[in-house]
C-alpha cells in the first residue's frame, strides 16, 4: 500500500483545513495505510495543549491527536524553525513529536509515496 504524508500548514479554528486533514488522517489510518503527520508554519498551533476550541463552536483537535497511538500513527514531525519563530516549546505540545529542522524536512517527506497539504 502506498504511504501518505499529511502536511498541516494552517492555524486551527479560523478555517476548516485542520478538520479536513484530521478526517483524511483517520480515514486512511483506519485502512492501515501508513500515514505520516507533518506540521509546519501556523499548523504548529494545532498542537498546543492549552487550546479550547469550544469557544469558537468547534471540537478540540488536541483530543483527537491524543488518539493517534490507537491508530498506530507514530510518525509525527514538526518543523523546528516554525516552532522557534512562534516561540513554542516542546513542553507546550499536546503529543510526543519528532522535531526536525528544514534540512531533514524534505528528506523525511521523501520517504512517503504521496503527500497532501492542508
Amino acid at each position, binding site marked *: 500500500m502506498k504511504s501518505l504524508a499529511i502536511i498541516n500548514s494552517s*492555524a*486551527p*479554528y*479560523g*478555517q476548516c483545513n485542520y478538520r479536513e486533514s484530521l478526517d483524511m488522517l483517520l480515514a486512511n489510518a483506519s485502512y492501515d495505510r501508513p500515514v505520516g503527520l507533518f506540521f509546519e*508554519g*501556523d499548523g504548529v*498551533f494545532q498542537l*498546543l*495543549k*492549552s*487550546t*479550547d*476550541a*469550544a*469557544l*469558537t463552536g*468547534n471540537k478540540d483537535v488536541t483530543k483527537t491527536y491524543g488518539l493517534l497511538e490507537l491508530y498506530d500513527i507514530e510518525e509525527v514531525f514538526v518543523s523546528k524553525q516554525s516552532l522557534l*519563530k*512562534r*516561540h513554542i516549546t516542546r513542553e507546550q505540545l499536546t503529543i510526543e513529536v519528532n522535531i526536525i529542522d528544514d534540512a531533514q524536512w524534505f528528506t523525511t517527506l521523501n520517504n512517503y509515496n504521496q503527500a497532501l497539504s492542508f
Partner: protein
Amino acid sequence: MLIIATKSPFLKPLPSASTGADLLLTQDGVIAITQVNDWSLFNNVYALSSDVAARGLNAHNNERIQMIDITEFVKLTANHQPIVNW
C-alpha cells in the same frame, strides 16, 4: 478608525507604519499577540478573548493588549468609523 485583523500575521503582517487607529485582533489575527510587535503604531490594541483562549494563547497576555468580549467588540464597531478589515 478601527482596524480589524482576522488573519495570521504570518500570512498577512500587521501594518508597519503608524496608523493612529485602534486595532482589534480576532480569529487567526490573535496569533499576533505571540509575536514581538510595535504596538505603539496603534492607539489602543484589543483582542477578542474567546479567540485567544480557543487557540491556547492566554499565556501571551501583554499589558498593551486589552482583552475584550463580544459585547465590547460590538461597542467598538459602533463607536468607530471607518472600520477597516485587514
